[in-house]
């Protein structure tokens, strides 16, 4: 059996093996002798403190050998690294979320997460395909994207980057979620030139397309209005630039962008357009002119195909108005005092209608379902089937509820979004309308908010830097271990 001292010596020698060869030749035996003299009787393993001290001694010798010349500059180097390393980590781009399983149905939580200033951005940590885009909070509001496959919440930072100015309360730019939830289209209220940006929610990549716009001293505004069902086209309105909180605009050129090819065409010039909705096959657009009493259905070349008579005071509730079977178009009573005509595309909070009716989209006077009546204000945001719609509605001053309503009866609450009080209202709720047919409701999970916002990360980096400096200071003090007087020590060997 190996004697304890042999075992201990072997372990000490293993530690000292890392010393430079010549130093080891000169010192190892001497140090081993002292180490064994200070050991307790029967001790087989080095004390952790002794081991740490020897590792530090090895590092010190190497330091003297290899880069001792740098020593005068060492504090500056350590200071720079202690600052630059955490900052570098803070500024590194985040990783994309896991790819969605194409066969997996989309899902919504039974209750959305609360407002949080710690929610990271789409660009830093793309969430993958989304089921919802909504506004949370105010001045500035957050545009929040919720993953269709997991509890990932992200701020749509592109909408904030394109935001209106201080005089418009930093309102995020108008943004529109694609039907399959994989992209968002983001415009501007006022920019030097008109453009529409498409951000991929799986990669965070942004593609910006210049679009034609009326020339004006106020610059241009670009409002995405509707995606076609397959996501091949985005209808948008270009206007003169404007302040969304002061002077809403609806007059401009209606255009269509094909994000896949970048092709842009102007469909209507100098038109008054409050909202549009694509037909399910993407071949027609329902266009609402707020000054007219009929809804105009046009081809993509701008020619009028038919006119649908509107009930008094009603208009398109948004881009999800057309039923997936192409038979019906929903219309709703516009709320009096609605701050922005293009509210549904995320411009200025929730602007709900009080009643929803249905028109025969073919104008052949076929029978249509009875109106949907609700005691509270609501807004149609999608269709889960040809005979079922999804509405968002107020919920006892505690946020909004998402409910599924059958056109022939039956109501099911799907989810709720808490508003968290007066400073964090919920608005401009959009759903990925192409994912609603097989939508599952999942239990709320702990939210994954991605990487912290940049300012939070920089703050954390500074804290880490301070921590590193404190640790370095402590390490210097620990070089000499100050202990209480030892008890009658069993390490008292012969001093020779």
């Amino acid at each position, binding site marked *: 059996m190996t004697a304890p001292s042999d075992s201990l010596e072997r372990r000490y020698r293993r530690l000292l093996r890392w010393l430079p060869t010549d130093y080891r030749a000169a*010192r190892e*035996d*001497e*140090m*081993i*002798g*002292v*180490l*064994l*003299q*200070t050991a307790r009787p029967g001790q087989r393993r080095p004390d952790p*403190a*002794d081991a740490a*001290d*020897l*590792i*530090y*001694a*090895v590092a*010190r*010798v190497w330091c*003297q050998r290899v880069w001792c010349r740098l020593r005068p500059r060492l504090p500056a180097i350590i200071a720079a690294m202690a600052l630059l390393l955490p900052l570098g980590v803070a500024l590194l781009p985040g990783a994309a979320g896991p790819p969605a399983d194409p066969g997996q149905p989309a899902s919504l939580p039974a209750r959305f997460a609360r407002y949080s200033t710690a929610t990271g951005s789409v660009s830093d940590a793309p969430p993958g395909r989304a089921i919802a885009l909504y506004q949370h909070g105010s001045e500035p509001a957050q545009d929040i994207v919720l993953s269709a496959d997991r509890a990932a919440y992200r701020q749509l930072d592109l909408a904030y980057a394109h935001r209106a100015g201080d005089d418009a309360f930093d309102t995020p730019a108008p943004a529109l979620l694609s039907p399959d939830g994989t992209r968002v289209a983001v415009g501007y209220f006022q920019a030097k030139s008109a453009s529409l940006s498409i951000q991929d929610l799986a990669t965070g990549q942004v593609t910006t397309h210049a679009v034609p716009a009326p020339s004006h001293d106020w610059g241009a505004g670009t409002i995405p209005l509707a995606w076609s069902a397959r996501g091949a086209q985005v209808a948008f309105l270009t206007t003169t630039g404007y302040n969304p909180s002061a002077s809403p605009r609806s007059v401009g050129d209606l255009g269509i962008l094909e994000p896949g090819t970048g092709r842009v065409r102007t469909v209507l010039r100098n038109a008054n357009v409050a909202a549009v909705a694509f037909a399910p096959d993407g071949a027609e657009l329902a266009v609402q002119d707020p000054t007219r009493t009929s809804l105009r259905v046009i081809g993509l070349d701008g020619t009028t195909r038919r006119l649908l008579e509107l009930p008094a005071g009603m208009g398109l509730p948004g881009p999800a108005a057309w039923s997936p079977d192409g038979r019906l178009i929903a219309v709703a009573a516009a709320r009096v005092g609605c701050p922005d005509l293009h509210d549904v595309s995320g411009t200025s909070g929730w602007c709900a209608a009080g009643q929803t009716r249905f028109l025969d989209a073919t104008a052949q006077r076929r029978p249509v379902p009875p109106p949907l009546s609700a005691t509270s204000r609501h807004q149609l945001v999608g269709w889960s089937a040809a005979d079922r719609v999804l509405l968002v509605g107020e919920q006892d001053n505690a946020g909004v509820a998402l409910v599924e309503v059958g056109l022939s009866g039956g109501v099911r609450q799907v989810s709720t979004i808490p508003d968290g009080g007066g400073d964090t209202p919920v608005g401009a709720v959009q759903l990925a309308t192409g994912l609603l047919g097989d939508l599952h409701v999942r239990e709320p999970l702990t939210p994954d908010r991605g990487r912290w916002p940049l300012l939070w990360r920089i703050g954390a980096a500074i804290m880490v830097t301070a921590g590193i400096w404190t640790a370095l200071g402590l390490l210097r003090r620990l*070089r*000499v*271990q*100050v*202990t*209480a*007087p*030892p008890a009658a020590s069993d390490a008292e*060997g012969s*001093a*020779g």
Partner: protein
Amino acid sequence: MSRLQEPSFLILTALAAGAQHGYGIIKDVQDLSDGAVTLRVGTLYGALDRLALQGLVAIDREEIVDSRLRRYYRLTQAGAKQLAAEAARQRRQAAAALRRLGAIEILP
């Protein structure tokens, strides 16, 4: 003349009584500090390397005891001079502190 850190001061003090080997220095420093300071081996040899580089200590002799190398270190003239200067400086500071403590009568 640079100031000595506490472990260096205690090591030079230990060697002021005569040449000592590594373990002897550790024990002596423990005694000198009334058990408050325990030098670990890595720290001891780090300090000895530094003091040797500054010319304050030197190797006195080597012995083989129980088949193990035992190296003795001694204080150099420069080391004695620096230790004396440091001791005088500490004595002045201690005296000043004691005078003031005496003035407010908190000494036992």
